[in-house]
């Protein structure tokens, strides 16, 4: 009788330990969407507005393109990029509001609608220079963890939620420790690798009383040809941007 009671107590204790261990494991398992949302902040997402200057340098084989410098204001799904250099394009602007894009230049008779296929420069698309909102634009699946340059990373497989997303599929490596994206592979809907990107976070911004590491460099390489674009992000400011900044009728 005592032996039976003892056995029952031991079994109950083992069951409790098992339940505790399983629930602990479940609680510790990271949520892919949360990881993505947190990493977006380091690239301008989820902020009331961001203003930054970007220097772009593209290379196609041995040929170096002319460097570009653009001033970008972005909030949510809207962005406006104004060219500062080269000087012959100074004042040119590209406005994006959701899936609609327009270009204006001093002297043009009116803003011209353009397609996302008319990319900014080299390998960079308009989505690369604007604030990143992967959490809003993509469904995320968490895979295994991998090391990138000795930095343990979550590996997220992202699928576009809607046509507004710049890429159909992305494989995204997010640092476990810093919760910033450090590597990405961009795929077409058929699964063809289009380009790869590496990210560095040498900037810092202040938001909600916190210091947040912020993107300072993005290197985009074409997967098929020897071509790359280096984007240096500088003069970063978090600030609310008025809706009128994205109004076509007020872009003069």
């Amino acid at each position, binding site marked *: 009788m005592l032996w039976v009671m003892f056995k029952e107590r031991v079994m109950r204790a083992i069951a409790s330990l098992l339940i505790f261990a399983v629930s602990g494991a479940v609680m510790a398992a990271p949520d892919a969407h949360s990881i993505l949302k947190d990493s977006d902040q380091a690239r301008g997402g989820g902020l009331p507005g961001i203003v930054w200057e970007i220097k772009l340098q593209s290379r196609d084989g041995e040929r170096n*393109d*002319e460097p*570009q410098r653009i001033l970008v204001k972005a*909030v*949510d*799904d*809207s962005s406006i990029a104004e060219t500062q250099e*080269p*000087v*012959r*394009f*100074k*004042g040119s602007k590209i406005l994006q*509001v*959701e*899936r*609609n894009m327009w*270009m204006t230049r*001093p*002297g043009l*008779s*009116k*803003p*011209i*609608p*353009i*397609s*996302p*296929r*008319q*990319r*900014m*420069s080299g390998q960079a698309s308009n989505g690369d220079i604007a604030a990143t909102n992967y959490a809003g634009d993509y469904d995320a699946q968490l895979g295994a963890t991998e090391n990138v340059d000795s930095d343990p990373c979550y590996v997220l497989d992202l699928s576009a939620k*809607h*046509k*507004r997303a710049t890429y159909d599929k992305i494989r995204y490596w997010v640092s476990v420790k810093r919760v910033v994206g450090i590597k990405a592979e961009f795929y077409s809907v058929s699964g063809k690798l289009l380009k790869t990107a590496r990210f560095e976070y040498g900037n810092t911004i202040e938001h909600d009383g916190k210091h947040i590491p912020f993107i300072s460099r993005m290197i985009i390489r074409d997967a098929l040809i020897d071509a790359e674009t280096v984007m240096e992000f500088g003069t970063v400011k978090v600030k609310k941007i*008025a*809706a*009128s900044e*994205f*109004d*076509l*009728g*007020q872009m*003069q």
Partner: protein
Amino acid sequence: MLVLCAVASTAYAEEADWRTSWDGTLYGYANSMVVRDDSVLNPYNQIARLPQRSDVAEIRMNLKAESETVRVTARGIGSTREMRNAFGQRSHTEGYLSLWQVRVRAAEGWNVAAGRDVLNWGAGQFRSPSSPFYFDNGRTDPMRELVGMDVAKVSWTPDMRSSATLVRVVRSGYGAAQPDAWRDSWLAKFDTRGEEIAWGMVAAKAPHLGAFYGAHGQYTMSDELMLYGEFGSSVLPVVLGSPEDAAQPYQIQSPSPRGNATLAGSSYTFESGQSLMLEYLHDGHGYTKAQEVAYFERATTQFGLPLGLMPRLLGRDYFHAVWQANMMSETGYWRLMYTRNLTDSGSEFAAYGETTLHPRLSIYALAVLPQGGARQEAGALFTRSFTLGLKSSI
């Protein structure tokens, strides 16, 4: 204007963080035009005296100063032009502001502005039916920029998706034809943008003219394909009526009957970034085929009037195609255009090309080749035109 200055002064006192910038471009270009001697409208160039050769030097400057709440912009143009034809040579020098504006953020979502503003919109390339002021869209003289209207305006932009604007047009800007039909007029515009659709509506009223109503819209079907359209319903200050019976005289109608213009277009962008645009325009103010035939017939005996009061477009139905390079290219740009007047079957080819010689220096050329006889709109005045120019950033 006084209220705007007061608000701007207050804003200036509160704001210390001003950012200024400027840039400019020098242009030098020469044009050669072969004028049609057998023109019905302009025989031996005696009426219009079009320049057969012109040389232009021009500077275009942009100035901007802005703070968090105030923005001041100006675009100044100075040019000197030498023109030659069989009748002699003349020169013309001018300087003016094609655009300027003082804009003040008066409150959250509200801006007030005064200045000279190009009130033009819509995705149409060939013409802008939805703009009461710029139907021509600059096509008549592609080397010359559009000049803004002198306006005061209030804009309400509650969010990223919509905006409303009320404009008081003081007068048409520099160089406008007189009498100025748009002096002391009003314009109201509403715009909205969804995920894939953007559209707007506009109404304008001049003191002595029937109201203008316009609308424009575009639908981004995919990364490659966009559909768009524009509409305008207008009464023109004066038109030259052309009865189908050529024995009847021209009829000057002031104002014109109401006419509608509709443009439908599509734009396809290739993977390379090149794009192809196809447009159809119907202009209710144009002539039917019989009316256009009579217009030219009557012109053989009545010089001056048919050219001086020439309709904005002679025909009613047009097809326009544009094939152009990636507009984001840094090294150059080209554009091929084809226009066909479906009413009189005349057409026009045009080609523009530009290439960078040096980061601050580009060379460009524009060729226009009408395909039509003296009694077709395309070939009525000249048989070819060629422009070659250099532009340098300063």
